[in-house]
């Protein structure tokens, strides 16, 4: 049952969020490329640096943080509502009386699934963002395809990818545990359920940003 539930969550979080992740990722890359071209235009910095900046910005910061903030809104509120709804409809009580460890059955598969699938979504986001940077700059003539690709292949450090994965796993854990907690302990009616869902998103987002800062300090210090 736990395995089946984990697979369901993997599908819901992974496939269910893929389209929104793809859309935001294209624009993350596009805006980063265009913005940096504007900032660096007329300076002595060679244009291929923009590819390098887009790559590192997305890998280190934008892909994990943006993706997880969006997922906190989409998946986190969904989890809080789902578990909160089960609490209110006595589904959790029913499981408790059957002898089911409800915290383990309802929360653990979500955390495991998120910790496994979010890094994959973030990887996709980083990849697509780099594509988004290309689409926004090369066809519009900001710089050449060769310059952008040269930038993407310059000064690459594997540590940055590791940082991306560390952030993804930590953010995924924060997002799911905070959201499940809000749903699991909801009391009252539909207004309280709405509040729990909102709190899940707000608290997750704040904690993700705090964790982002701490990880950045720890891994770059």
């Amino acid at each position, binding site marked *: *049952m736990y395995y089946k539930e984990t697979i369901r969550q993997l599908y819901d979080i992974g496939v269910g969020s893929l389209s929104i992740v793809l859309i935001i990722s294209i624009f993350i890359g596009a805006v980063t490329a265009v913005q940096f071209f504007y900032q660096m235009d007329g300076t002595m910095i060679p244009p291929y640096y923009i590819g390098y900046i887009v790559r590192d910005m997305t890998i280190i910061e934008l892909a994990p943080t943006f993706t997880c903030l969006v997922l906190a809104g989409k998946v986190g509120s969904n989890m809080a509502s789902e578990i909160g709804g089960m609490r209110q409809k006595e589904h959790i009580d029913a499981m408790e*009386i059957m*002898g089911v460890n409800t915290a383990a059955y309802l929360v653990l598969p979500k955390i495991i699934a998120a910790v496994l699938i979010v890094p994959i979504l973030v990887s996709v986001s980083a990849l697509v963002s780099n594509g988004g940077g290309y689409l926004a700059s090369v066809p519009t003539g900001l710089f050449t395809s060769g310059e952008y690709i040269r930038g993407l292949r310059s000064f690459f450090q594997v540590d940055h990818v590791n940082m991306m994965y560390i952030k993804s796993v930590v953010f995924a854990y924060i997002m799911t545990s905070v959201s499940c907690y809000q749903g699991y302990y909801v009391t009252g009616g539909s207004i309280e359920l709405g509040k729990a869902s909102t709190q899940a998103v707000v608290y997750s987002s704040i904690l993700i940003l705090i964790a982002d800062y701490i990880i950045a300090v720890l891994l770059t210090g």
Partner: protein
Amino acid sequence: MIRISNIKKSFDDVEVLKGIDFTFEAGKTNLIIGRSGAGKTVLLKILVGLFQPTSGEVFFGDVDVCKLGKKEIRELRMQMGMLFQGNALFDSMTIEENIRFPLDMFTSKDMKEKKMMVDKCLERVSLEGINNKFPSEISGGMQKRVGIARAIVLNPKYLFCDEPNSGLDPKTAITIDALISDITDEYNITTVINTHDMNSVMEIGENICLLHKGLLAWKGNKSQVLESDNDTLQNFIFASPFLKRLKDRAMGVK
């Protein structure tokens, strides 16, 4: 047998149960009755371990459940089945998956055997052939029966029912009462029903406790109800003007 001793329960400053002593007899249909707010649901939730009493003891046989650890409570709960007021059927699962859920969680039986057990339970509640429907596709009365089927699939020793007749028409309510009563006898289960349905009291009440303002106001069985001169009981039973007129007419009161 379930015995409760001096059960008290408070929520913040409100004392809902003020010291209840009662014995729910083994193999019988035990009823907790009383007006809304009397503390029936709180008492039922204490019995099944969803609430901890503020003070007092709950004995299942010789075991005081208030002193059990989480693991022991889970093991005890596998001997319990419960029918909830709102049925608590899992919306995203089919009827078969709902009934099979306890089997999936706690048994290592193969799927064929589980299916046979599900079919047997559905047959027992006269709902053959609805395995693949979802809870939203069946009526309230059918949902109650599915709830009963799920509650008995693991052959429990104890069956708890919270307002099993709420939201049902009188005829369906009688069917549900009869079903619960029959299952209690067939499976030799200790059944505890929380209700304010007079029909249930008079038809299946083998052992009844009346709660009033958090206290035990009366105890007895269905044949003692009409003979009792307990004012609280009489006011509760004949709260309906129609029933009161019938009673007065039967007793020759004009």
